[in-house]
């Protein structure tokens, strides 16, 4: 599973101080399940799809994002960096990541958010402080909390502790997952989940081979097992132009889903390229031929899938 999560690190200092590696908490999230929600984004993912618009979620360790257009060349980062990764040269800010340990000191000294620390260890209490701020909105809207990522299920121990705490407040919980792990990780979380939003990115093996680090059979088998548990499931597919935007691909997924007992909805989401700026900020290349499917094409695919499953 590579560098996605280190449980020993999370357990350091005892269970009461267990931490999760979180890269964002979004309030008033309205696309991540029913009602008004708070979405907790877990860092680290074992699928790392080529088109992902959250590249900062790939690895669990902290990373520095650099947005050059915000830099005012104050030089604070140059002064405070113990690894001497930052230089101001001829009116340009150069960030050499070679020796960067993502200690975050430069982000603390950057007052214009040109340098941003992505991902930090958070305790259950720290996450809950933000989650509980909007309880009244969850109650009024039928909303709640969504664990997303990255892949939240990979941080199993932390997820479990967080879920127990969320459920002790009687809040609705949704987990967004992409299924590439041993099933036991998800199984222990299910008693605390009201909804699973499960991503099936593709059916064809070749798409997995080319674009997705996850194991196709594991992902599809885990979904079948999940369906036997009685938890409502929404399956989602990001429709990526030039990858899986064909009737054949979407129909294959829809047919695979059609016998599910607990499938509430199959959702097709159009790919968007908004993640490019994040790739740049992490110093990563983002060259590809992906495109956003036309709305007509999306309607067509939705209509085809609708013959097999509720869309």
């Amino acid at each position, binding site marked *: 599973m590579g560098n996605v999560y280190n449980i020993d690190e999370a357990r350091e200092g005892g269970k009461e101080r267990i931490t999760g590696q979180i890269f964002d908490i979004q309030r008033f999230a309205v*696309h991540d399940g029913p009602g008004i929600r708070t979405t907790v984004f877990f860092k680290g993912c074992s699928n790392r799809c080529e088109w992902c618009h959250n590249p900062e979620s790939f690895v669990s360790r902290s990373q520095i994002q650099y947005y050059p257009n915000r830099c005012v060349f104050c030089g*604070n980062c140059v002064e405070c960096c113990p690894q001497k990764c930052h230089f101001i040269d001829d009116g340009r800010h150069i960030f050499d990541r070679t020796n960067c340990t993502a200690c975050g000191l430069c982000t603390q000294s950057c*007052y*214009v*958010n040109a340098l941003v620390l992505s991902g930090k260890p958070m305790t259950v209490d720290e996450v809950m402080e*933000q989650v509980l701020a909007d309880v009244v909105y969850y*109650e*009024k*809207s039928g909303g709640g909390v969504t664990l997303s990522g990255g892949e939240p299920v990979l941080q199993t121990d932390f997820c479990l502790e967080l879920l127990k705490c969320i459920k002790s407040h009687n809040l609705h919980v949704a987990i967004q997952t992409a299924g590439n792990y041993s099933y036991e990780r998800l199984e222990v979380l299910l008693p605390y989940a009201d909804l699973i939003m499960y991503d099936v990115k593709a059916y064809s093996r070749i798409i997995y081979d080319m674009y997705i680090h996850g194991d196709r059979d594991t992902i599809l088998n885990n979904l079948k097992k999940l369906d036997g548990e009685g938890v409502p499931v929404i399956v989602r597919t990001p429709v990526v132009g030039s990858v899986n935007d064909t009737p054949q691909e979407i129909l294959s997924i829809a047919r695979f889903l059609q016998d599910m007992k607990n499938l509430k909805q199959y959702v097709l989401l159009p790919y968007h390229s908004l993640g490019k700026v994040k790739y740049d900020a992490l110093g990563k290349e983002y060259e590809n031929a992906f495109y956003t499917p036309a709305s007509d094409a999306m309607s067509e695919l939705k209509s085809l899938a609708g013959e097999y499953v509720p869309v």
Partner: protein
Amino acid sequence: MGIPSYFERINALHETKLKFNDIKLQRLGSYNFDDHGWIPFDEPIEFEIVKDPESGYVNGMDAVSKTFANYLDAHPVYIHPMSAFAGAWAGNVPGMGGPWKPQHIFKEQEPLFEKYNITSRGLYGMNHSGPDLKIGFDLGWGGLLEKIRFYRKYNKPVDTTFYDGQERFVEAIQRWIKRHVDYARQEALKADDEFVKKNLLEIADINEWLIDNPPRTLREAMQFICWFQCVDRMYFNGGAGQEIDKLLLPYYEADKAKGIIKDDEEVVWYLASMFYNDTHYWQIGGQNPADGSDASNPISFLVLEAMHRLKIPANVALRVHENTNEELFDKAIEYLFEDGTGVSFSCSGGLDKGYARNGFPLPLARMRAKVGCNWTALPGIEYCLQDVTRVCLAKPLLLALDEMIESDEENSMENLMRRYKAHLEAAVNIIKDGVDWHVKYKHLNKPEIVLNLFAHGPIERGVDMSHGGVDIYIFACDATALATVADSLAAIEKFIVEEKKLTWEELQTILKNNWEGAEHIRLMFKSIPKYGSGNSRADYYAKLIADMYTNLMIGTPTKAGFRVLPGIFSHGDVYIHGRNLPATPNGRYAGDPISHSADPDPGFLPGGGTAPTAKANAVAGVQSGYGNSTPLQIDMDSKLVKEMGGKEIIKAYIKAHNEMGGTLININVVSKEKILEAHENPDKYPDLVVRVTGYSAFFKSLSKEYRQQVVDRWIAYD
């Protein structure tokens, strides 16, 4: 031509309004208030201004009533052929706006207003209380005249100026109406179109009756309202209405029972015609005072329909409470999404219990209707002078900072806060002294000649509404610049006290130099976790300052014994309030706008975003809790809202804020692309209406500064 449909009639009113707006913009360049209903007549109105010989201005009932009567006698007549009603106003009565009599100017206060950056003084303010038009409905103009004459005889005052002036004013209104009757009949004779002819004759008949008699039908009652709206606006822009659905229901039901109204579409046309006449503030929904049950009725729905069809600025609030009619709520949200703007949402959750805390019974608090930009008032029984009094929270901080540094005492946060409180108290006391002065002398300068007629007491007692004519006197004062001062204090604490990046003296010098040569320090001071982010030091200071302000304002009455209710509201005037304010430690330059009302500054979340729930929590957390409003301004991208299937979400959001003690929510829903495009090229969207703060306006009409203010709020959601 056949009979135009109601849709066609309303559309004609819409088109005329856009045409008039273009003429207004040609004359004014831009204007930062709502459309109001005024008509840009071609010719100037020639009339005699009667001045008080003592001051040389229009002061006192005699001069005011004579000037007003002369103006009405010279005022042009107006009937839109597609409107259900006659009448319009051309502008405020010229000459009325001069200063009070020299002996009534509070000269000692003048330098203090400047010292504390108090730009809306309350003192010298006008109207901003609620009328009870039922008084007019019961009596008609003729009955009001008889009432004035009766009480003059009954009270036998030595000085009859008050009654003489009120009588002169009502008679002038009657003459003005009579001229419309004659005009309508003349125009009917000339009209070829059968509908126009018939409509004009109906308008003539209605108004002929209304000159002396009380309204009998819904259409007559609403025509009466139109006359009220016109004269109320002419006199210092009075804009308060009341619970329009409750007010009109008896006429609606009677007309329905008698078969006078066969189709609700006709009522929608009446309402659209009334909104075309003027943008007075009205409330729908709300509660029955006795038990808090929902008070909405069929008129509530028809009001929404009329606003939706007319699509011009209108100021209607839906009063939200625990038992709000869900169907009405749904409809209001539906039209908000469709039109981009619509009703504002006045929240009983914070208002009713808050007002009751002043010692009033809850049923009375439920009667306090939302009839102004941010404010509520008891119709006809309360003089409250809302929304014209503001105290700047930021200037006392700068004064305290200077004073502390120049003193021999050690510089510290505690020292600063102690001095801040003293200066804030001084500013609060200036406001309170102004209230006393106002009540003492206003009636001798600018009497409430319009509202006196529609209040319970002034005519009966022969005493102006501002001076003892009604039973309840409770004032309001809105604080401004909360986020500016909260973020400033958090920045001082972090960088001066804790991290010692600068000394107090260095900060003072930098502020005096307006951050010149200190851009990096300015950015550093701007970078603190801001008010609104939740549990930050700025949030702590926002609450501390809001509580301090509330306690200072409510803790003691004015010297004359009046209570002043605290709220937090800047109106749309963040530029005006910032113009004379030096640089502040939150990174703001001298002269830049202050923060808006109690809202956190745009992009307040770490990283620069804005979460509506975080914003609503922040505003709910600083409510003063005594019945004065502290509004929440929300601007949503329509795409986002549509994608998320957001009607239920927005409804839940409003309900939650109401439950958390919120008092008012103003919402715009427009796509970011459209608002940016309209900012760049205002002519492209001539009928784009936005809610600037509590009032709505054509976006095109606003100055670039005001448009920018609205645009900034949208951009903050990135």
